[in-house]
């Protein structure tokens, strides 16, 4: 890379530092450059402006549809009980949430994707609205995800969510990466009110692409999401999908929330190697302050036992 290109990138970073939103030309400059660090620096400035040195994370217990729910009280560090899978009918969906809520106690229950529920409703807006309301009444704290990739009519979908009183835990880009991902991020950035019904943007692919994505590609996508999508407050990375190491590095490239830190394994691996300890160490090691949250994105205490749930 020539010195000229480096100087141009440094100028972009400086502009962002001074509060100037990156222009199309700036973004093109950052995207086209192999200088990953410059891209990270620009994203980090924006991220720190929004969140300071705070990084939130949630520890979850998964409840796959059709499987037995956990017996007894959930472990104290559980921030969310997540129902996973694709329901076969409205009744199955609502029943699963009711059962999960009964099991979860004060722990928020989340689950399902907008696309799956839309399929289940036969793409009928009225039926979908009824199903969303029924799920909320059954105790669903937040919808699991909305995929930007699959949305035919984003405005209508966001309006439907708003009217149902449900918020989605995350907007994802589905499997979109590279230039497709970039163009989808630009579209999301133009969606009015998306930040009110989607708590965060999870920009990395939800299913492992083949060949697998690379570290550069993942971090580029995280950083660009932070730079381009300023109508969603949080950028999220997934511990379970991407692993603790990449999730940690992504915090220095614009991410501010870590999803899906498992609760399981805490006992089996010993205290220092339990996921809860690892995530605290990882966040501190990346230079940030860890804030545990629950499935409603409310901060909870770091303590153990009932203390942990005091904030809910």
């Amino acid at each position, binding site marked *: 890379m020539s010195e000229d290109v480096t100087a141009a990138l440094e100028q972009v970073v400086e502009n962002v530092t001074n509060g100037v939103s990156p222009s199309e030309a700036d973004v093109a400059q950052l995207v086209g450059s*192999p200088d*990953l660090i410059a891209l990270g*620096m620009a994203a*980090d400035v924006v991220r720190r402006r929004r969140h300071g040195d705070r990084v939130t994370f949630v520890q979850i217990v998964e409840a796959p549809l059709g499987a037995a729910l956990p017996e007894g009280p959930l472990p104290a560090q559980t921030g969310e009980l997540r129902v996973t899978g694709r329901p076969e009918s409205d009744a199955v969906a609502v029943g699963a949430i009711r059962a999960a809520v009964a099991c979860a106690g004060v722990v928020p229950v989340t689950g399902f994707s907008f696309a799956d529920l839309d399929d289940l409703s036969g793409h009928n807006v009225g039926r979908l609205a009824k199903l969303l309301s029924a799920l909320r009444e059954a105790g669903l704290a937040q919808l699991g995800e909305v995929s930007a990739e699959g949305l035919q009519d984003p405005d209508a979908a966001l309006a439907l969510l708003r009217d149902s009183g449900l918020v989605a835990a995350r907007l994802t880009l589905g499997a979109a990466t590279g230039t497709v991902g970039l163009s989808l991020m630009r579209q999301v950035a133009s969606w009015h009110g998306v930040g009110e019904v989607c708590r965060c943007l999870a920009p990395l692919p939800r299913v492992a692409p083949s060949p697998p994505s690379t570290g*550069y590609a993942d971090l580029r996508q995280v950083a660009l999401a932070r730079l381009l999508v300023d109508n969603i407050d949080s950028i999220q990375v997934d511990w379970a999908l991407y692993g603790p*190491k990449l999730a940690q*590095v992504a915090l220095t490239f614009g991410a501010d929330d870590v999803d899906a830190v498992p609760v399981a394994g805490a006992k089996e691996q010993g205290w220092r190697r339990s996921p809860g300890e690892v995530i605290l160490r990882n966040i501190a090691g990346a230079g940030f302050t860890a804030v545990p949250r629950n499935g409603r994105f409310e901060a909870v205490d770091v303590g153990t036992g009932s203390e942990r749930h005091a904030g809910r």
Partner: protein
Amino acid sequence: MSVESIASKVRSGGRLDRAEALSLYADAPTLLLGQLADTIRRRKHPARDVTYIIDRNVNYTNVCVARCAFCAFYRPVGSDEGYVLGFDELFRKIDETLAVGGVQVLLQGGHNPDLPLEWYEDLFRAIKARYPDFKLHALSPPEILHLSRLSQEPVPAVVARLVAAGLDSVPGGGAEILVDRARRLLNCESKATADEWLSVMRTVHQAGLRSTATMMYGSVERPDERIEHLYRLRELQDETGGFTAFITWSYQPTNTELGGVEATGVEYLRTLALSRLVLDNFDNLQASWVTQGGKVGQLSLAYGANDMGSVMIEENVVRAAGAEFCMDEAEIVRNIEDAGFAPKRRTMAYDILGGPLFRERDIPRRTELAVARRSGDTHVPAELAQYPARSRPGKQQRDAVSDS
């Protein structure tokens, strides 16, 4: 001195002292460290080439008397799980390595009291007789020291004998942290003190061989001791210029006596970047994808590394401690190109051999690394009967081999 003024010093080509290095390591933002390391990498390698080597990491024995507290690989003398590879097994591994375009074997093993210096000499001669152009990158400084103690010959004489038998270069293993306080805690001071490790390397360089250097961080050492390690290497490199490359990796705690937790990915990138800044007289820094995984391994290229290390083919030591990542040549090349670099195949001495070999000829894809021996394979090589053993279990084993 503030972080910003130290950063300016780096940008203008100044040499960091220990206090400045420690200050950067403790206080500089990770991205700034990366930016500075990348500046130095670009200065040293303006062509945007990233190199790698096709070789095989073979551990000829896992029997070891050193008993390092951080090691999950070794087995004590007399263990049912102890092994020594036979010459034929090693030849087979070299044949497989040649078939995928490999140019050398990285041969390291435990400090086995029942393998005398003559065994190594015979092995090296036999390899060179069969494969005259194939390179032997073998025996880290503690292994050489072990052979010196075992044979009661001084290190320069042992090195001379090994070179005469075919040794081409020396891997930088066994350095761990070159500070004796940490080495004592790791129970590896007796295998080689910091001074001894450096002294063996000096001898190797004086004998005309090149070597690599390593650092295993993240176990018991303090940050200032990591930095001390880097300065000890820098000083020897100033003196001899014999190191071709530096590789750092994080301590892998699984299945070890020491236990504990692994350092994080960010800590790896910070340590790598700092190494690039301190080791200003090292041309090459390798990414440790074997311990960090492919993704953070690739990110090393943004944090000062200019080399993806070895395609590996086989790995036993890190796997024993819980890390198991595999990248064949095609995958390494994909990662290099994805990061915007040009992949170049190299030798241990960093002579460029060409572009990706799999684009020139058909090489089967590989999704997992081979192991030294399949589990349950307990056979004892027949040629061991020719060499005297020192331990009682070793002597009994030799007798059994001779009888059969």
